[in-house]
């Protein structure tokens, strides 16, 4: 880049290189009434790209339910805020870092984690739990192993150093992600409910302060990169990758929270995608004011940076704040104590314009409002995804043996243990992890509120979404509801991260629309509004999109941590029951894919009324202290769930099909929704009575005990064999063995 890019005359070509369409460029000319210079063009392109403007998704996002009496702040701020009682609020959000993690897995994933934590502590919350959703290409694909290794070490390196426990997530493999892996990071924080900080910057004359790391030429155009479809030569481009510095972020966290405990901040915004541009425009826009920025005052890591570069740099670990004028000295002292840069880089002005100067010259002068309000908005054409046929249980061949099918499933890439991953994450720091990774939802004890629990989970089943985006969207929400209910938590709210292909293709857009409709319906029915989220489009390579992956993150509350349930059996001679029943649905199931080698059929339908009834019933039983062992049935069906329960406790079980209405493999491996397995002392009759009264099917499957799993009287599978199979796949794969 030459010393002064503003000497370059902007042409429609240059605008196109910035990802702006001819219409969009024409609109820019109309808004400012002249040709923009390059810095101004850069600012427009950053604000108007998909990542910042949500131009393809906004019309649909508006249809999602976002409110409830306990929602303090819904979408639109850095993170969603929900009242959790006792004067506290949970602040949480999920965000994608897909493209950067494919280009440089360790740093890409690390900076994704750093970014989402900043979103949470910007609002005044101390992060207390991290989660991550990872979707990789086929295990056989040449790049997958390297990506898994890098992404996991990157996530660990950042969260571990920050001292925030990484307590859960989801990991799966599918060839559709070969050229576009997904890395979605979620962070949950806790703040005093009456001390939430927002981005709006109102007061005219107030100082605009830059804190954190210095600005370098990191990731310039990163935000645009996140919205550009990959093609074969992307791997050649290798743009300036951002390197994370978790140590600096830890200092930034402590310094911000220390400052927030004083009464100094008017508005605060982290610098994420499109750095200084996005943060300054958003703060000014929300405060209905203008902003005067002096770039010479910006702390810089490299010499000779231009206005263009300074405005678009995505250097990490930086924040922009507007302070009460009288608070400047105190704030400076706090940041200096934490050895961080602190610089007054501007003032709030009343003209409604963003005026950027450098070297004594105005480098950009733009009206703030149109940068966000007049951002393009597209109602992209979309095609309804064709319905797939239902596959009847009888049409799917039985396995040679149920035992072998079970071992194949729990030793498969998608169902085997994730221990190799979560043991690289410090999931215990802060000392409040009550339920560790490996169960349904993770549970932490709320700081300073002994006995009060916060349950967190993420879920989505992309192969269902591929088969039927609407049902898949419903299912993603329903499964988080189930994971929370299974530990006895009252579901409160959700965040989403919508990962799809190119929205300009009507078929892809159709999957997006279908999924949103499904999510919305489920969130309404289950009373779990979406309070924050993120959209990641263009996840495709050479015209092939990833499976639609509308990832859901959810939180729930446990009022009394003495009344919760765990996945492991609580003892021997307990009666095992299945709550909910089904038709042995095998369409789009893992059994069909892994054992029968077919990826087809409609996914299991989600009956939201039954979902709610069953979930409320289990939770009620857990809250009443009657159930302490529970696991929901998801991927792989009932038998996989039973195996996981046995392994979690080291206690075996003997189970049999409670009726002969279905083929055995359909009963044991069917993925019908809205079901749980529980184990209780005694014969389970009380539970069955209560279930009957609540309209919930409750079938006795068998008893716990011994050190093997015995199914339908077949030869027992020892827990040792089960464990080796379940625990073996991922470590062996990562050690280099063929998938």
């Amino acid at each position, binding site marked *: 880049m030459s010393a002064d890019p503003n000497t370059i005359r902007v042409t429609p070509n240059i605008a196109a290189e910035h990802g702006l369409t001819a219409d969009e460029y024409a609109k820019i000319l109309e808004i400012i009434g002249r040709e923009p210079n390059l810095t101004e063009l850069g600012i427009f392109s950053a604000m108007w790209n998909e990542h910042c403007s949500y131009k393809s998704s906004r019309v649909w996002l508006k249809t999602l339910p976002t409110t409830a009496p306990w929602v303090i702040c819904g979408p639109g701020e850095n993170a969603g805020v929900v009242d959790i009682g006792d004067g506290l609020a949970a602040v949480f959000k999920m965000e994608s870092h897909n493209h950067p993690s494919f280009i440089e897995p360790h740093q890409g994933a690390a900076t994704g984690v750093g970014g989402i934590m900043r979103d949470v502590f910007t609002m005044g919350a101390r992060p207390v739990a991290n989660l991550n959703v990872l979707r990789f290409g086929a295990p056989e694909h040449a790049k997958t192993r390297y990506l898994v290794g890098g992404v996991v070490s990157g996530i660990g390196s950042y969260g571990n150093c920050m001292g925030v426990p990484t307590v859960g997530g989801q990991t799966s493999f599918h060839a559709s992600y070969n050229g576009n892996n997904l890395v979605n990071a979620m962070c949950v924080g806790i703040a005093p409910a009456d001390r939430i900080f927002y981005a709006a910057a109102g007061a005219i004359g107030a100082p605009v302060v830059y804190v954190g790391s210095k600005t370098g030429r990191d990731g310039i155009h990163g935000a645009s990169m996140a919205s550009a479809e990959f093609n074969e030569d992307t791997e050649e481009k290798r743009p300036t*990758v951002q390197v994370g510095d978790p*140590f600096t972020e830890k200092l930034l966290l402590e310094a911000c929270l220390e400052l927030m405990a004083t009464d100094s901040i008017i508005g605060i915004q982290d610098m994420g995608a499109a750095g200084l541009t996005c943060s300054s425009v958003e703060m000014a826009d929300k405060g209905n004011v203008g902003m005067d920025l002096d770039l010479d005052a910006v702390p810089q890591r490299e010499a000779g940076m231009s206005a263009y570069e300074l405005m678009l740099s995505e250097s990490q670990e930086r924040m922009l704040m507007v302070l009460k004028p009288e608070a400047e000295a105190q704030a400076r002292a706090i940041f200096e104590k934490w*050895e961080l840069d602190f610089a007054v880089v501007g003032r709030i002005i009343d003209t409604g314009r963003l005026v950027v100067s450098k070297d004594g010259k105005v480098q950009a002068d733009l009206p703030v409002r149109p940068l966000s309000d007049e951002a393009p908005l597209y109602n992209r054409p979309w095609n309804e995804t064709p319905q797939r046929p239902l596959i009847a249980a009888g049409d799917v061949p039985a396995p040679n043996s149920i035992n072998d099918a079970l071992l194949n499933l729990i030793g498969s890439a998608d169902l085997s243990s994730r221990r190799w991953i979560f043991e690289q994450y410090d999931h215990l720091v802060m000392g409040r992890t009550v339920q560790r990774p490996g169960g349904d939802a993770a549970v932490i004890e709320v700081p300073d509120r002994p006995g009060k629990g916060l349950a967190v989970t993420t879920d989505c089943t992309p192969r269902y979404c591929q088969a039927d985006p609407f049902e898949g969207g419903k299912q993603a929400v329903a499964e988080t509801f189930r994971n929370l209910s299974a530990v006895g938590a009252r579901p409160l709210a959700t965040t989403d991260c919508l990962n799809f292909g190119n929205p300009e293709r009507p078929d892809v857009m159709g999957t997006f629309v279908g999924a949103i409709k499904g999510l919305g319906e489920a969130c309404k029915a289950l009373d779990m509004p979406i309070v924050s989220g993120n959209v990641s489009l263009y996840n495709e390579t050479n015209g092939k999109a990833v499976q639609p992956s509308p990832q859901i993150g959810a939180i729930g509350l446990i009022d009394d941590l003495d009344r919760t349930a765990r996945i492991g059996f609580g003892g021997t001679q307990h009666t095992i029951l299945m709550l909910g029943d089904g038709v042995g649905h095998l369409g789009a199931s893992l059994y069909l894919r892994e054992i029968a080698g077919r990826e087809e059929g409609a996914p299991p339908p989600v009956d939201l009324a039954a979902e709610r009834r069953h979930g409320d019933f289990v939770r009620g039983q857990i809250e009443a202290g009657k159930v302490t062992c529970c696991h929901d049935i998801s991927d792989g069906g009932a038998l996989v769930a039973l195996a996981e329960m046995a392994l979690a406790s080291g206690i075996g079980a003997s189970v049999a099909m409670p009726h002969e209405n279905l083929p055995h493999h359909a009963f044991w491996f069917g993925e019908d929704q809205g079901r749980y397995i529980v184990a209780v002392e005694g014969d389970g009759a009380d539970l069955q009575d209560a279930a009957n009264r609540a309209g919930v099917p409750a079938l006795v499957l068998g008893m716990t005990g011994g050190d093997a799993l015995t199914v339908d009287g077949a030869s027992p599978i020892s827990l040792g064999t089960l464990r080796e199979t379940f625990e073996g796949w991922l470590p062996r794969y990562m050690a280099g063995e063929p998938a």
Partner: protein
Amino acid sequence: MKARVHITLKHGVLDPQGKAIGHALGSLGFEGVGDVRQGKVIELELAETDEARARAEVEQMCQKLLANTVIENYAIELQA
């Protein structure tokens, strides 16, 4: 034959370690320390005795494993 591979971060890539070391040297009272960068050296013993072939082999190792060419540069030195 012995090979020595120097791996350094590309110009412009943030080096958090170097930054922290520079800072720490400052607090220890060392003055006049400017930019600090941290890199790696990997020393390998090779059975190969032909210099050209050894270099080609180490080059391959760097590309495939030793260096992260997205953010790092490498330089190879050989000693008989």
